[in-house]
């Protein structure tokens, strides 16, 4: 058995291939590096892993699950959310492209802009509330408001487009 997955690490795509060797041993290639592990399925979805060798590192237990188009893994007491390469960055806050998306599922408390407004990068454009907390959202770039999809009092899903700002072309001039 052999499976390969691709993930993004530090902005670069890394291919990770796990190949069954024998017994409980698996050979895993991470990019150019080769590691070998004893890997035992725990029956609850977890896998106990320990490197193979003369002086093995200490064993740890790993769990994994898909999460919002990424793959989440908990290994040795740390959580990683691993993006697949084709996957563009999801719902997050202002990414600098001028599109303001809902960082989480919630309700729109306030819409503080309208189409045609000139806005700054740090200006609050929408206030979204989820789990009893308020979040002020900014475009992250200065520019002109092109579109306002958010409606006061409305419910929005994570990643939903709320406001689109057309960035100012200041850089082009300088």
């Amino acid at each position, binding site marked *: *058995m052999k*499976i390969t*997955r691709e*993930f993004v*690490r*530090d902005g670069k795509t*890394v291919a*990770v*291939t*796990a190949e069954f060797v024998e017994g*409980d041993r*698996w050979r*895993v290639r*991470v990019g150019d*590096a080769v*590691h070998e*592990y004893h*890997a*035992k*399925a*725990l*029956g*609850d*979805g*977890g*896998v*106990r*892993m320990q*490197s193979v060798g003369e002086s093995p590192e200490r064993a*740890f237990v*790993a*769990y*994994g*699950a*898909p*999460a*919002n188009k990424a*793959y*989440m*893994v*908990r*290994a*040795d*007491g*740390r*959580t*990683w959310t*691993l993006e697949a390469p084709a996957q563009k960055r999801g719902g*997050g*806050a202002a990414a600098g492209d001028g599109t303001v998306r809902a960082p*989480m*599922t*919630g309700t729109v*408390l306030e819409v503080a802009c309208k189409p045609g407004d000139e806005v700054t990068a740090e200006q609050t454009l929408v206030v979204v509330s*989820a*789990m*009893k*907390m*308020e979040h002020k959202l900014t475009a992250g770039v200065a520019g002109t408001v092109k579109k306002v999809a958010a409606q006061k009092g409305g419910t929005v899903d*994570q990643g939903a487009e709320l406001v689109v700002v057309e960035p100012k072309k200041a850089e082009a001039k300088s």
Partner: protein
Amino acid sequence: MRLALIPGRRALAAAAIVRGFAMAKNPPFRRVLIANRGEIALRITRGLRELGIESVAVHSDVDARCAHVLGADHAVALGGNTSAESYLDFGKILAAAKRTGAEAIHPGYGFLSENAAFARAVRDAGLVFVGPNPEAMDRLGGKKAAREEAIAAGVPVIPGTEKDTGDAALIAFGKQIGMPVMVKASAGGGGRGMRMVEREDDLAEALAAGRREAKASFGDDRMILERAVFPARHIEIQLIGDQHGHVVSLHERECSVQRRHQKVLEEAPSAVVGEELRQRMGAAAIALAKRVGYDNAGTAEFLLDPKGNFYFLEVNTRLQVEHPVTELVTGVDLVHLQLHVAAGGKLEQLLAGRDLRPRGHAIEARICAESPETGYIPAAGLLRVVREAEGPGVRVDSGVYSGWEVPPYYDSMLAKLVVHAPDRATACARLSQALRDMVYLGIPTNVDFLKRVVDDDAFRTAAISTDMLKHRPELAAGDKAGPDDHALAAAVLTQALGKAGAATGGGNGGGAAAGGGGDAGSTAVWQALGGFRLFEGAAR
């Protein structure tokens, strides 16, 4: 001769066993409705069951399969999803109690727990409110009322406004006493609607935002303003009172690790509160409680400055989120006590023969569905894998399970991880290891953040204050390094082995004899809790 008349410790303990047996045979109520959700509703259900009382859960539409519903003896659908449509609706909750024949209502924390009007409505409906009498709540529930009572009881307070005098007057007063100031919801609790303002120019916006949050959380947008004491430690005194004028202090908890006035880690005892200060703070809290005729559980919150002066903040007239740390160090079950005193029980009998001095050290970590690494953004969504820590001295009060979809309508807290150990250093080590064992996958949580804080030298040496996290943003941010090779290997091996192992109930390791996948394992707890029956939707 006189000495022989005083019963020895062993005789008292024996008497307590007999009394405990008698109480178990005569539960204070037959059936109790829990007007709450998630972990606290489940924790109350456990307490009820231990006393031989049937539990009635209530739930919104999205919570129909929430852990507290699955774990209860009976359940009533309230309909709706927002808090206002469900857990805050007096009429629906009272109708549910009537329909199920519940004799008392336990409000938990949050929602209607500090609502005196609700406590009155419960009483007027001929039911028992498991909490303080509404008259005492009126006198302590609002921050300004509590402050006046504290002054009258001789308890030290922080300079500030007594009431909401309107935005203009509040801003003027703030400028007069000088920055920084705190703006707070008059009806508040739990940090909602509360913020520190360091620049005069920010006062107006802070008031507006505070009013909005307060309106949403409490249905009351009145705000007050006062001087900020800092660096401060948050020390609170757990009280329990009966209906016969007795109030007992169960000592302090320290909740200094906070972010935006929401508690993150709570512990008992405090590393900086010695016996003398413990007695003085306890006496102050008791004096205040007795002055207003307080009964049932409550917590008096104080700020402690570096010189050892303490200032009264507010009284939370309910069971607190962090009550387990007090339970672990005093050996008292607060939910049991609440139920007994609500039914008229006497503390001198309920606590007779009990040594209430704190022993060992307990710490609680609040597990929340939020991402401290990206500005603490809360995250609703599907929890695909839940594995909670266990082991000696580890208590998990959880409200979630594998496959539960966390709804966006309520608080982001999923569970509480509480540890107990002989001393603080061991408790820190135990909490760190338990956090390492916690697995919540599918949505972001603050588990890694909590571990960073617990492992930090400042926490290990108890050098903590309420503004610690603000000054140490790197604790929230974490390191920016990408996953190491082991993590990437784990991502692939869990896909190669994990699912196959779970689906077949076995793996190539030969050690997977335990049947069932992750979901079955984690829901077994609720199923084992006992009989389960659904009532139809509550009448409007």
